[in-house]
């Protein structure tokens, strides 16, 4: 009896060691692309074309970054600025649109509240692809925008504009869902107390509810910001001017311009990824909480 127990313990020890080894290998593989990207971004044109490849750069060419940054017509600085506008203002306006509706479905008592929330959640079932083409046409024909007349004809609407890149994403079901969960966890008694103090809904929302819901609010903003930062397909469709390109689209075009100069491509990839990685390290705990909540909703 004792021997079999010992053996099974030994077996499970070995098993554990094997699993640990596998996980460490997987973790290394997961990190490898980042490492390889950074190492390559410092190598010379001659060095990257060696076979077998060198691991450590023989000399560090910081000029790759300068080259990549300034190579596109408007420069990557401009693309960064565009992305900051689209992701920053886009996230801000997304909150401005989503907070009130989340507040309405969590703190108001009225007929149709359940219906409104059901309507919001059901948009999660509509795949992103199907909305692309109709939204493209819709945005071109927004009345009075971009030289359009009141019927939405004649101009190009929000095509090729910051607004065109941002507008379809202001109302986002997932953000509304996340915020509603947060608001619901705050007792309604607070509202009753606030009413005694003579507060109206707007003041209550701004001075009581939002400060109390900071962590989920940060999670929602982070997820929205990163989604917009990394977005490609929609900005690619809706813009045509070089100077309006956001970072990801600029990077796509940079690939076709640079061709085989991978040291420059790796430099551009590095500075595209870096801000989000830094943001991630600064706000880690909110990230995991937010992503996990996508699971909890099922």
């Amino acid at each position: 009896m004792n021997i079999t127990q010992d053996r099974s313990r030994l077996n499970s020890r070995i098993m554990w060691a094997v699993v640990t080894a596998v996980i460490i290998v997987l973790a290394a593989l997961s990190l490898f692309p980042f490492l390889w990207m950074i190492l390559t971004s410092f190598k010379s044109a001659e060095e990257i074309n060696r076979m077998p490849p060198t691991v450590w750069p023989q000399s560090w060419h910081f000029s790759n970054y300068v080259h990549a940054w300034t190579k596109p017509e408007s420069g990557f600085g401009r693309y960064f600025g565009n992305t900051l506008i689209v992701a920053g203002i886009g996230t801000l306006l997304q909150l401005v649109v989503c907070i009130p509706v989340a507040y309405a479905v969590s703190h108001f008592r009225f007929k149709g509240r359940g219906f409104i929330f059901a309507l919001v959640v059901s948009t999660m079932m509509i795949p992103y692809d199907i909305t692309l083409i109709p939204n493209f046409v819709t945005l071109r024909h927004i009345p009075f925008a971009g030289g359009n007349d009141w019927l939405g004809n004649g101009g190009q609407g929000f095509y090729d504009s910051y607004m065109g890149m941002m507008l379809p994403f202001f109302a986002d079901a997932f953000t509304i869902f996340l915020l509603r969960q947060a608001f619901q966890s705050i007792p309604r008694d607070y509202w009753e107390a606030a009413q005694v103090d003579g507060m109206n809904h707007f003041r209550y929302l701004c001075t009581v509810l939002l400060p109390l819901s900071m962590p989920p609010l940060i999670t929602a903003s982070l997820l929205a910001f990163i989604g917009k930062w990394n977005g490609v397909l929609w900005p690619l469709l809706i813009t045509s001017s070089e100077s309006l390109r956001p970072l990801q689209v600029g990077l796509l075009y940079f690939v076709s311009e640079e061709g085989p100069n991978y040291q420059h491509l790796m430099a551009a990839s590095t500075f595209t990824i870096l801000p989000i990685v830094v943001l991630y390290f600064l706000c880690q705990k909110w990230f995991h909480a937010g992503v996990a909540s996508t699971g909890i909703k099922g």
Partner: protein
Amino acid sequence: MHKERTTTYAFKMIRRHGRPRHKEALIGFAYALPALLLLLLFRFWPLGFGVWISFWKWGYVPEKFIGFDNYIRIFTEDLVYRDPSLGLQLGAVGQSVLVTLYYAIGTIPITIVLAFLISYYLFQNRKGKGLLRTVFFLPFITSQVAAAIVFKWIFHPNVGVANSMLEKLRLPIQNWFVDPDPIGMKLLASLGGHWPDWLPIQFGGPTLALAVIIIFAIWSSLGFNIVILLAGLSNVPSELYEAARMDGARTPTLIRHVTLPMLSPMLFLLLIISVIGAFESFNAFYVFSGGEGGPLGTTMSLPLYIFRSFYVYGQVGYASALSICLFAVVLALTWIQYRFGEKRVHYQH
């Protein structure tokens, strides 16, 4: 008499509370209105408008109402078509459906199994948990465009590190993004077999280029799956484990009879999200093939095909018809999964 009194009472109630109620509803709607309008315009309206567009020959402006012609073209020419000498052949849409299927089959099971193993391990092992979770999560928040460029570099045919590894292991080096032969056909050839002429070569599995995209997709989405499963694992009541341990259950039994059933709602959710995701996959396909879907269309996913019909060829009506079909397929798949998955899923309440 009695009746009258209740009505008066009700009337008083309305007078006392009716107005504020009414006002509350009004304010509530006002708060919800901006989001509702935007959702109606950019989420619901596209469903109907997309169907409408799909009935037109529509370049950059609507040209002609053609009814179901776009759909007829999809199903009789582009999905499969009859070649006078070769018989029934797979069309461009058919091939992109197959590519998307290979992609789904290649990514989803491996990702979910790996994510389960890793999250189970991380859950048991509190020491390295934070660090490892970060390591696996990084790819998920990384720009897919930038990451795909890095993968293209790693799998570079002449000076890529992947080929250099193969060389060290004395394995044949590969022309990852150019070789149009499917893996099944290559394997058959290396075993000395010959691919039968009557079978279209697209059925020989993914090409190496698609395999690299599959590896990329696993790398990219693993962290998301892990974080969701970790959340699920921490919801399993520890008494369940303790009780099972008392009964002498060992780890494999424990996993089979406690962990997996308790985790099944999360696994099911991941499955549904992943299937929908597979049919929306665009970024990696676009970057790896430079938007062309090559070699020979073997990395042309359905969303990329739709994008090209719209963006490159300006066939708005046709592309819209395709995306309606894609929507129908995704809905059907989700329904099937609910139909057959629901029974196997164990909900806690």
